[in-house]
């Protein structure tokens, strides 16, 4: 390919240096095209949750990179991920976001498909030439080669070969465990709708911001100051209280961010940031009556010892490279959809903990509004920043972008990863670029290098 020719492995390796990356990784459309082919075309990409396709025939529109796909539960219960393209003239077969169907029928000439993608019937079939074989897998809604579920979280890979989903997730899977284990009944479901927020910037910027403990004091200064000045004597139905706790805690001093939070990385570009709320400021504060009821429900189902273990896991954002970030403790999940070099759309979901009091889910919704809502007093300043990065980079200034904070002091971590000596280390960004380089050069040894 031409793009591959311009970006030889040697050239790509030269663009990712210790503690810095070349500007072109964010500005060259050819890099973007190559990323879609080699990262989104190879890695395990989160495509949905099994609670969204509970029954045979349930389907969900989803994407890998720029490709519109269909996640379906077939009659036999098995989950398939299909290219949403008719084998005849290429029309998108299913036009709705989600639903239930016994078969899929193309609007153009009425070709119909089984819910596992196989061709079911073709009108005027005798009019096709000898080479036409309706049983050919290519004459179908083509399946994405690999789809797998980790405890209900469904991932797809456009590559026929590669590591298993479990190997890909590695230790990051424990954050998915954390989300599920918090449910007293040991089961979670997507609920409460979805946010779809967009920004005029590169897809990589999103995950690069989510474990960044050094940005809130600046990016979120307006909401921190407005929240700190807010009287608590004013009427609240509880929703504002959750939001205000969150905004005020973003204003914790550097000394706190540096020493109290923690940042850990793992192979394949994954990472998580520790929680930065103490018990009195926690979103679901320990002295909050709703949270007390929740703890009682968890203890009743899981026993006090196990409940204590579950609640002691204190993680903020977990990033699963390249496009998933979630908050296990607060039941939030974000999926990053690259649209073009400087256009990204992020879909965010909330989960209900089965067996928890319904008021607990109401707090989850209030929390979702403040951290992921299009009208959030917090998120809007992040989105503005991504756009400014895109514009700033077009200025053609500094050729190398610094991602070196904490470089000299990072420490070896557990499970093949590293950790920042200080929580404000950019170790998790460097870790993502190690994975980036491995995918882009198709040299898995760089994934191992991430663990050094």
């Amino acid at each position, binding site marked *: 390919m031409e793009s591959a020719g311009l970006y030889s492995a040697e050239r790509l390796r030269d663009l990712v240096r210790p503690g810095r990356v070349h500007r072109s990784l964010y500005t060259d459309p050819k890099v973007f095209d190559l990323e879609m082919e080699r990262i989104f075309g190879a890695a395990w990409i989160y495509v949905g949750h099994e609670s969204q396709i509970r029954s045979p025939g349930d389907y969900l529109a989803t994407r890998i990179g720029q490709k519109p796909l269909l996640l379906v539960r077939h009659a036999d219960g098995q989950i398939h991920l299909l290219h949403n393209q008719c084998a005849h003239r290429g029309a998108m077969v299913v036009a709705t976001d989600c639903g239930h169907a016994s078969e899929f029928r193309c609007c153009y000439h009425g070709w119909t498909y089984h819910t596992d993608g196989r061709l079911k019937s073709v009108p005027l079939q005798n009019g096709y030439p000898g080479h036409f074989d309706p049983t050919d897998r290519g004459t179908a809604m083509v399946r994405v080669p690999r789809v797998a579920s980790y405890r209900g979280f469904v991932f797809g890979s456009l590559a026929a070969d590669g590591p298993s989903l479990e190997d890909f997730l590695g230790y990051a899977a424990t954050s998915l465990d954390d989300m599920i284990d918090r449910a007293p009944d040991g089961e979670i479901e997507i609920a409460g709708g*979805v946010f779809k927020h*967009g920004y005029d910037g590169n897809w990589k910027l999103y995950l690069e911001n989510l474990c960044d403990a050094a940005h809130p004091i600046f990016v979120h200064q*307006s909401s921190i100051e*407005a929240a700190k000045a*807010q009287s608590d004597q004013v009427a609240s139905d509880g929703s504002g209280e959750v939001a205000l706790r969150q905004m005020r805690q973003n204003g914790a001093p550097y000394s706190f961010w540096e020493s109290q939070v923690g940042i850990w990385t793992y192979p394949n570009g994954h990472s998580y940031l520790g929680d930065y709320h103490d018990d009195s400021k926690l979103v679901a504060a320990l002295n909050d009556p709703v949270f007390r009821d929740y703890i009682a429900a968890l203890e009743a189902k899981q026993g006090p010892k196990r409940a204590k273990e579950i609640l002691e896991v204190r993680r903020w954002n977990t990033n699963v490279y390249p496009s998933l970030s979630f908050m296990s403790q607060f039941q939030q999940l974000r999926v990053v959809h690259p649209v073009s070099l400087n256009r990204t759309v992020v879909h965010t979901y909330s989960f209900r903990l089965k067996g928890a009091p319904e008021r607990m889910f109401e707090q989850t*919704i209030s929390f979702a509004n403040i951290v992921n*809502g299009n*009208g959030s007093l917090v998120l809007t300043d992040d*989105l503005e920043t991504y756009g400014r990065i895109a514009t700033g980079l077009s200025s053609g200034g500094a050729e190398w972008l610094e991602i070196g904070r904490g470089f000299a002091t990072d420490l070896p971590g557990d499970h093949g990863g590293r950790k920042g000596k200080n929580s404000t280390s950019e170790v998790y960004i460097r870790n993502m670029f190690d994975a980036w380089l491995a995918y882009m050069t198709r040299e898995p040894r760089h994934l191992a290098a991430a663990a050094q």
Partner: protein
Amino acid sequence: MHGADEVSAADAEAFLVHEARLLDESRFEDWLGLFTADCWYWVPSQPDQASPRDTVSLIYDDRRLLETRVRRLGNMHLHAQQPRSRTSRIVTNVTLEGREAGGPIQRIRSKLLLVEFRRDQQRTFAATSWHGLVRDGGAFRIAWKRVDLVNCDGELDGLVILF
């Protein structure tokens, strides 16, 4: 039953036009002053959304959060408003929708067409607005406000302006 707390469509429309003007003129504190002490302000994320409690919302503010939202609009470090948005609102099709059962709140329905201009980009929002109005002496107060954007469940960039 009749008299001082009776609301006419013309009175309601005059009030909504005044409210829209305060927002277009960036008089946000004055706008906040239109609301009652226990108000709520809601921009749902789904058409016909039944509740802000079990489903996410583009905006759902109780009085405490609404005060914070308005205060932030005056903060010099509000990056998402550098430069500031300019807005132009048309409020029309105002109808009285009756009183809430057992209370003094008059429900008003109207249509909003809102143009936002910021940094060489213009965005258009269309919505059905619902106001719950009460009389406070001679003046109206907003007990609650709900704005249903026609594109509430679409892909949207950040929303900083007030609807």
